[in-house]
């Protein structure tokens, strides 16, 4: 009785703090608001959403059953299937889903002000993102930890499974390209950043050799060594950047870096995993958790003001960072953090094989995604504490604001944000870079924001450049890990597909088949990275919407699967839980896809392609292109992006048709028709989470 009263009072307090924080954000319109209010309001909303909505889903909708054995217990092999303490697994799951996505999307979306992005992140995660992660985890857990593709095959038929596989591959290629481009844009003409990122390669190799040959399995020792060397490398980077001999060795243009990352991707994904991938993965996971925690603490210590207004004039779709109106483009620009289809792949990968009890899926699936969403809120905050003039100087393409501080300050001044050329050069100097202009992609913006927050907390002005490069390295580190691991995964998918046509190409133990599939995979994403650096209209601005559409469509597909499963379980009265987010995602992605295909300038891919190919045929050169060849390239790339959008749209529409057909069949069937693994009772009162 006493406990219940205490708990009710506690939740009342959370609700009260949340309401006060929201009021502070809402009532201070026109004045600057402290970021602390925004972050606090978000935290309270997460707690309330977790306490009430996820409880409802766990108890009523999914009816999690601790009397049922999980695959981690029934198939415990001490390797893939291991029952794991729920808080440890929550940490593992969060580390697996958190990547560069929640850091990039919100930063780009900040061009519309902090409010639209914040609302979408919060509402999206409670109603869609966390629900998807949680339910996919549940579905996989009830099916021996099967992957999303296998589950679609089981519950929606083999054709649907095949289509989903092709779709997942296409989305992965786009995401690898977008992430690769983020790194390239961040390191272009930046010897300090390039040096520290290059250092991570031999460093990871030393760690790999240490863990394999010298002290097998001593991961803690190797990771501690790695972190220390990394910090030293960041410190030494300043010396490299200033040195007349070393500096030029690490100064590269964006197209050169694009080639570097393409070659890196091909070589790294063929090296043995213990040498480079695994050690760097440990290192980046370690840093990821550390930096996220430090940033949260930093925001509370420094309590910076949000300098970006709540909404800007760019909600009308004329923004320089990405084109398109608030609806639907905000909802695809912020993918991870609100809802991300990629998580469906993680939630049906390693995690379901490690869950000790069914009820743990709630904190791991739903709670893990809320934490990722919190990272997105902090990224948005870091972008919005910057001076808006600086923000637009960094994120607008050269075609719009030019290449010099003078021109940039003039254009941005016309938008209504006063900024002097001196402020732009001073910001670059503060972070130890030559220029901050045209650094679209989110990473540098976030790094400047983080550097300002962290240096205000620790080290002051003198450490700002250090913190900036620390943030860049932190993002580059896990993007390179994703490029490496993603290329490997893409290779397996390609071999899977090729193997159905010509079996020898599907053999994963054949070196030549491996090389062919790897080169194919790298060539596909590498093309977009390279074009992003030489196509005057290309880059993150073009690629990110494509990634967003693909990623949200994958989420739509995962939620369609969850809806079908609920119907097949005969839980029709709860299908609104998945149907509402599914419908919203389909509306957003299909209307965004529609606009990208059919809209006029500057949103529609085909409209841009048409304009440039017509002009090229007539022999005229349109800015920002400089030659007819460049014009043709712009036209071709836009046709290509348009074709990919068409493919995504067809993909999701066909999946919707499969889901509806299957659901109608299941509704007509008076009995549950779901294909779960057979029920095995769990031993009551035993904790399995262990092992010595």
């Amino acid at each position: 009785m006493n406990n219940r009263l205490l708990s009710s009072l506690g939740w009342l307090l959370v609700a009260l703090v949340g309401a006060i924080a929201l009021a502070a954000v809402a009532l201070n319109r026109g004045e600057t608001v402290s970021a602390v209010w925004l972050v606090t309001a978000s935290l309270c909303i997460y707690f309330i959403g977790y306490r009430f909505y996820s409880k409802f889903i766990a108890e009523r909708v999914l009816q999690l059953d601790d009397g049922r054995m999980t695959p981690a217990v029934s198939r415990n092999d001490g390797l893939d299937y291991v029952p794991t303490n729920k808080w440890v697994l929550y940490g593992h799951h969060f580390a697996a889903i958190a990547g560069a996505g929640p850091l990039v999307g919100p930063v780009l979306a900040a061009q519309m002000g902090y409010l639209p992005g914040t609302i979408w992140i919060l509402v999206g995660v409670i109603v869609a993102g966390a629900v998807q992660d949680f339910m996919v985890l549940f579905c996989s857990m009830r099916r021996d930890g099967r992957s999303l593709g296998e589950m679609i095959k089981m519950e929606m038929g083999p054709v649907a499974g095949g289509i989903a596989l092709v779709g997942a591959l296409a989305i992965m290629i786009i995401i690898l390209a977008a992430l690769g481009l983020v790194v390239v844009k961040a390191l272009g003409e930046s010897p300090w950043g390039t040096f520290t990122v290059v250092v991570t390669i031999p460093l990871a190799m030393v760690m790999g050799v240490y863990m394999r040959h010298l002290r097998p399995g001593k991961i803690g020792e190797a990771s501690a060594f790695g972190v220390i060397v990394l910090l030293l490398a960041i410190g030494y980077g300043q010396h490299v950047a200033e040195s007349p001999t070393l500096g030029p060795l690490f100064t590269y243009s964006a197209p050169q870096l694009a080639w570097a990352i393409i070659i890196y991707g091909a070589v790294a994904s063929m090296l043995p995993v213990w040498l480079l991938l695994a050690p760097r993965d440990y290192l980046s996971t370690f840093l990821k958790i550390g930096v996220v925690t430090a940033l949260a603490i930093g925001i509370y210590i420094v309590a910076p003001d949000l300098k970006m207004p709540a909404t800007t004039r760019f909600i009308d779709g004329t923004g320089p960072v990405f084109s398109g109106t608030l609806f639907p483009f905000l909802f695809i620009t912020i993918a991870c953090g609100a809802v991300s289809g990629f998580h469906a792949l993680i939630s049906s990968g390693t995690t379901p094989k490690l869950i000790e009890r069914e009820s743990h899926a709630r904190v791991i699936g739903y709670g893990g995604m809320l934490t990722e969403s919190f990272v997105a809120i902090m990224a948005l905050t870091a972008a919005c504490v910057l001076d808006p003039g600086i923000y637009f100087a960094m994120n607008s393409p050269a075609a719009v604001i030019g290449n010099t501080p003078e021109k940039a300050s003039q254009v941005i001044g016309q938008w209504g944000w006063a900024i002097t050329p001196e402020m732009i050069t001073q910001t670059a100097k503060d972070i130890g870079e030559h220029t901050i202009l045209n650094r679209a992609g989110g990473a540098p913006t976030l790094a400047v924001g983080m550097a300002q927050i962290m240096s205000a907390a620790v080290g002051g002005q003198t450490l700002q450049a250090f913190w900036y490069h620390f943030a860049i390295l932190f993002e580059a580190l896990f993007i390179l890990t994703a490029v490496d691991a993603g290329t490997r995964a893409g290779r397996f998918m390609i071999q899977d597909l090729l193997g159905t046509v010509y079996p020898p190409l599907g053999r994963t133990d054949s070196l030549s088949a491996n090389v062919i599939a790897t080169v194919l995979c790298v060539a596909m994403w590498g093309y977009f990275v390279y074009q992003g650096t030489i196509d005057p209209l290309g880059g993150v601005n073009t690629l990110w919407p494509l990634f967003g559409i693909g990623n949200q469509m994958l989420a739509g597909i995962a939620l369609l699967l969850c809806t079908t499963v609920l119907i097949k379980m005969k839980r029709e009265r709860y299908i609104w839980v998945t149907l509402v987010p599914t419908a919203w995602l389909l509306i957003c992605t299909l209307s965004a896809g529609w606009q990208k295909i059919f809209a006029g300038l500057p949103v529609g891919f085909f409209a841009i392609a048409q304009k440039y190919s017509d002009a090229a045929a007539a022999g005229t050169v349109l800015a920002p292109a400089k030659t007819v060849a460049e014009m043709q390239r712009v036209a071709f790339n836009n046709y290509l992006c348009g074709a990919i959008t068409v493919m995504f749209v067809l993909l999701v529409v066909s999946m919707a048709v499969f889901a509806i057909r299957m659901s109608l069949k299941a509704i007509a069937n008076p009995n549950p028709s779901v294909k779960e693994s057979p029920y095995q009772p769990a031993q009551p009162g035993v904790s399995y989470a262990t092992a010595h």
Partner: protein
Amino acid sequence: MRPPTEDFIGPNFLGPDAAAAAVRAWPQRLAFIRQAFRRIIGAPDYEVYLARHRQIHPEAPPLSEKEFFRFAIERRYSKAGPRCC
């Protein structure tokens, strides 16, 4: 309330076992922390494998620590899906 069992190491941080865990010895707690650290970053855990192997295949010789790490790391990255965005 779940009673702590023989094969349980360390506290279930916030779970009902927290009280029982408070009296546990430090070596066990350290073992738990080491294990948690490994699991979170997704590294293989030889101790877990060895204990389980002895339970389910007491007749077969287990892999050595070195062999196990080679096998487990290879396996994780040859099957694991893509990392998130």
